[in-house]
Structure formats: structure tokens, C-alpha cells
């Protein structure tokens, strides 16, 4: 469907994807009505620093915002904050808002993001138990980030470990509870898990793997302790829950748009309704370098799909689909990830984890599919190119640290 004559575009969701779509539409020359509906009180902001520098107080709130308020006025964008979209009437091309108002659209972008999984345990609603997703969550958490306070983190994913690093650096007593036998079990290899466990333990974080939380114990509605299934009791002043996220797909599903663990979209970020697009955490997209579809929870994905949707609406050529990439900062470690490592059949370590500067390459049938690079930006950047090229790589070439990564990549790309 040609939407290049659209004069009313509505974006639901003011996160990274929604903000990118706004920018790409205006940069792409779209001059028609543009409305952003967001359920948070704040203008669009960056989420990554929430569990990193912002949580630590090293990054001012003002720096979190993508754009100042004046930008939205200058760009003639109608921003509706603190408002949830409750329904999409596809037959009449209308979005209904929580207070009853309606918005007409010629093209619609759903960028509703995701929400934290709630802890399925008694005591999850006690005061002192927090998710870490929104700016408002961090505002509630930060007053408790006081040296000597005891923090329990449920879930050793990236969010949990980043928060653990910040809390530890601020002098809190930190315990991380993980149900799986290792940290980061869902997202990386045992080599990386072992490395991060070692780092966190060396910093004084108590990491309990294979730990099954039974319930959170409270006194007068306030968190007092985490109690494990084996009876272990861990006293706590504050608890953070980071056990994964769920896509906010209900708005689309209720409108009859195809969903399956995410709103299903094609390479242009278009849903089963040709006037409606979905971008960011809420969407399940073709992963062109992997021959399958899936949901990505990342800045790269949100930005790229925001651009893809804007380009498709404006009838412009499809922007390049980059290989997925991610990053995580913990202590003085910078982890950069390119690609998706699920389904690897061979793993190659380049460098020595003891040097705190190394990379783990993941191959499948001799082709590089992903890298986890610790303080190794050259390995990260080279791998992005190699993954997108589909080049074959010899494991012993990758592990040879006497040859610079740049040369290894150049040789593989020329072959």
C-alpha cells in the first residue's frame, strides 16, 4: 500500500523507536500532522543509562532526553504524554485514548515497547520492591542507593548485573539471585557467564545461582528479606526484579493484528494491516542474517525499525538492516555484542579472560554468527562486518592474537 500521500501519522509509544520514527519522518521530508502518544509523563528519553551512569548519578536527567521540548514545537509535533492508547479501530483508522479522545490516522506506528515480567512470588508488592524499566522506577530506587543498605537483585540478566555493579560501586551490600545454574544463561555462553560471575564476586557481590526464590518477607508492608526455597533468608532493604520483559502487543492483538510473542512485521516493519507498523521491543521481525524471525530487545533494533517504518511510509528505499548489536557496561568493563549467538556449534576465545580484554566468537558451520567482546572494540566492529558478509572464518585464525583483528577481517572479507 502506498502511504506516501499520508497527511496524518500517529505514533503510539514515546521510547527509542517512537522517537526515532518522529525524527526520521521529519528528516525524510514529511510535513503533515504528526502525533506522538506516550503513557509516561516524560518526553522521550534514553533507557540504557537508567541501569548504568544515570542510576549512579553520573549523568544528569537533562542528558537523558533525546531532544529538548522546543524541538517538538519547532518540528510541529503534537506530543500527548501520560496517556495510554486503549484501542485501534482499523476500519475507520482511529486510535482511542484513555480519556476518550480519538486520533485519525493515515498511517500508524505502534512502538509500545515492553514491560517487566512480574515476580510470581508472594511479597512482590511490598514497599521496597522495584522494577527497573522507566525513569520513574529509578526515581523511586535512587533514594535507597545508600552505602551500607542491603540490596537483593532477582535475576542475573544484563539489567540485574548492571544494577549490581552500580549498587556495589555505591557501597551497597548486594546479593544476586539467579534460578539458572549460571548468570546470563539466557543470553550468552558459559565462558562469558563464568567471567562475569568472577568479576562480580571479586567486587564483593554475593551471587547465588541455582537459587529458587520462595517469597519476599515483609514487616508492615515494607520489604524485610528474600526467602529461598531451601529456607535461606537474605535480609534486604531494597529489591530489584529483573527477570525479563514481555512485549506490549495487546493493543495490536485486540485490534486483530497478527501477533506471536510480539507484533508480527515484515522487513519494512509493516504489520498484517498495511497502514500499521510496529517498531522496537513490541515487534517480532525478520532477522535477515539468521533466516528466522524474532523479537530483539535493544537500542539498535528500536532505532532501525523506527527508520524502516518511516522509510516505508514515505515510500523511500529501505535502510540497511544492520546485524543486531547490544552493549552493557559493568564496572570498568565494556561488553559489546554483535549478532545472535543462539544455535552456535563452535566457540572460539580470542585473548585471555584474565586480562579482562578478550572476545568470544560464535560460529555455525564455519560462519561467524556472533561475538561477545570485552574491552575489545576492534573485535566487535570487525565482527559486525563479518557477520553481515556471511564470510567463513577459521577458528585458529580468530584465536591468533598476534594478527590484528582488522587484518583477520580484511582477509576473510577478501576471500
Amino acid at each position, binding site marked *: 500500500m502506498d502511504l506516501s500521500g499520508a497527511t496524518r501519522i500517529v505514533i503510539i509509544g514515546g521510547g527509542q523507536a517512537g522517537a526515532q520514527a518522529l525524527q526520521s519522518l521529519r*528528516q525524510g521530508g514529511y510535513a503533515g500532522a504528526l502525533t506522538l502518544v506516550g503513557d509516561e509523563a516524560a518526553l522521550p528519553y*534514553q533507557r*540504557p*543509562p537508567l541501569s548504568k551512569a544515570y542510576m549512579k548519578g553520573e549523568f544528569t536527567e537533562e*542528558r537523558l532526553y*533525546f*531532544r*529538548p521540548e522546543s*524541538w517538538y514545537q*519547532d*518540528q510541529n509535533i503534537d506530543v500527548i504524554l501520560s496517556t495510554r492508547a486503549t484501542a485501534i479501530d482499523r476500519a475507520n483508522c482511529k486510535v482511542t485514548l484513555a480519556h476518550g479522545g480519538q486520533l485519525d490516522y493515515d498511517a500508524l506506528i505502534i512502538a509500545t515497547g515492553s514491560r517487566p515480567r512480574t515476580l510470581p512470588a508472594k511479597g512482590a508488592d511490598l514497599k521496597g520492591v522495584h522494577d527497573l524499566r522507566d525513569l520513574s522506577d529509578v526515581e523511586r530506587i535512587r533514594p535507597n542507593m545508600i552505602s551500607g543498605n542491603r540490596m537483593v537483585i532477582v535475576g542475573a540478566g544484563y539489567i540485574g548485573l548492571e544494577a549490581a555493579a552500580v549498587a556495589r560501586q555505591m557501597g551497597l551490600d548486594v546479593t544476586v539471585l539467579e534460578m539458572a545454574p549460571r548468570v546470563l544463561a539466557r543470553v550468552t555462553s558459559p565462558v562469558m557467564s563464568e567471567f562475569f560471575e568472577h568479576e562480580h564476586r571479586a567486587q564483593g557481590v554475593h551471587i547465588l545461582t541455582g537459587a529458587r526464590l520462595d517469597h519476599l518477607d515483609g514487616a508492615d508492608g515494607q520489604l524485610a528479606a528474600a526467602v529461598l526455597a531451601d529456607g535461606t533468608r537474605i535480609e534486604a532493604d531494597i529489591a530489584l526484579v529483573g527477570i525479563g520483559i514481555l512485549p506490549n502487543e495487546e493493543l495490536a492483538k485486540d485490534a486483530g493484528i497478527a501477533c506471536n510473542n510480539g507484533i508480527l512485521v515484515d522487513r519494512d516493519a509493516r504489520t498484517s494491516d498495511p497502514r500499521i507498523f510496529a517498531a522496537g521491543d513490541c515487534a517480532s521481525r525478520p532477522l535477515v542474517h539468521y533466516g528466522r524471525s524474532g523479537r530483539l530487545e535493544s*537500542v*539498535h533494533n528500536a*532505532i532501525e525499525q523506527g527508520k524502516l517504518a518511516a522509510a516505508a511510509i514515505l515510500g523511500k528505499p529501505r*535502510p*540497511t538492516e544492520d546485524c543486531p*548489536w547490544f*552493549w552493557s*557496561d559493568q564496572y570498568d568493563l*565494556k561488553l*559489546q555484542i554483535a549478532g545472535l549467538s543462539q544455535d552456535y556449534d563452535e566457540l572460539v576465545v580470542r585473548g585471555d579472560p584474565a586480562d579482562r580484554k578478550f572476545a568470544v566468537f560464535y560460529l555455525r558451520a564455519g560462519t561467524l554468527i556472533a561475538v561477545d567482546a570485552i574491552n575489545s*572494540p*576492534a573485535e*566487535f*566492529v*570487525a565482527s*559486525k*562486518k563479518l557477520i553481515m558478509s556471511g564470510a567463513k572464518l577459521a577458528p585458529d585464525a580468530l584465536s591468533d592474537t598476534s594478527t590484528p583483528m*582488522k587484518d583477520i*577481517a580484511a582477509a576473510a572479507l577478501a576471500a
Partner: protein
Amino acid sequence: MAKITYKHHDGTEDVVEATNGESVMEAAVKNSVAGIDADCGGACACATCHVYVDEAFMDKIGEQQEMERSMLDFAENVQPNSRLSCQITVSDALDGLVVTTPESQH
């Protein structure tokens, strides 16, 4: 405060009053300067805020760290005066800085 000029390949330019402590990338993005994508928001993870720095300022903008150098190693159209603008911190010493944006960040 520092006045920064962003020159573009099409001959146009933007002049911005930047605040001390923010990066040259942030000053560009907050003032809607085109040509600096900054996809990662300043985490030195994407190399989409590449600029060419006016020679007169090369010794005032601070040393390149390894992370930045590696990112630039793999960027397109790199020159000796290439920098990632997210890694240049604004200070009074940068008043009058001129940077040029590349034709494309990807």
C-alpha cells in the same frame, strides 16, 4: 559555553551554543543538526557521530581512547582528523570549534 560550527558536505552549516560538559555530539543532536546520527546515544558503540575536526583544534579536543580509535578503524571515509563527536567534551577551550560532517554515517 562554546560556539561550535558544524559544516555539511552540501555547503550548509549550523552554529550551536554548546554547554560545557556535554559532548559535541549531544550539542548537535539537541539542536537538530543533521548529519550526526549518534545511534547509540553516546556510548561509543556505533561510530555514527563521525566528524572531521578543524586542524586548529586538534590539540585542544583531548586524546583519542582505544575504544574510539577502534571504532574509527572500521568506519567509512576516515581521515587523520576524524573523531567521534560523542567523545569530545565541550569546554571553554573549544569556543570557535569547527567540525565537518561526512556525507554519510553508514
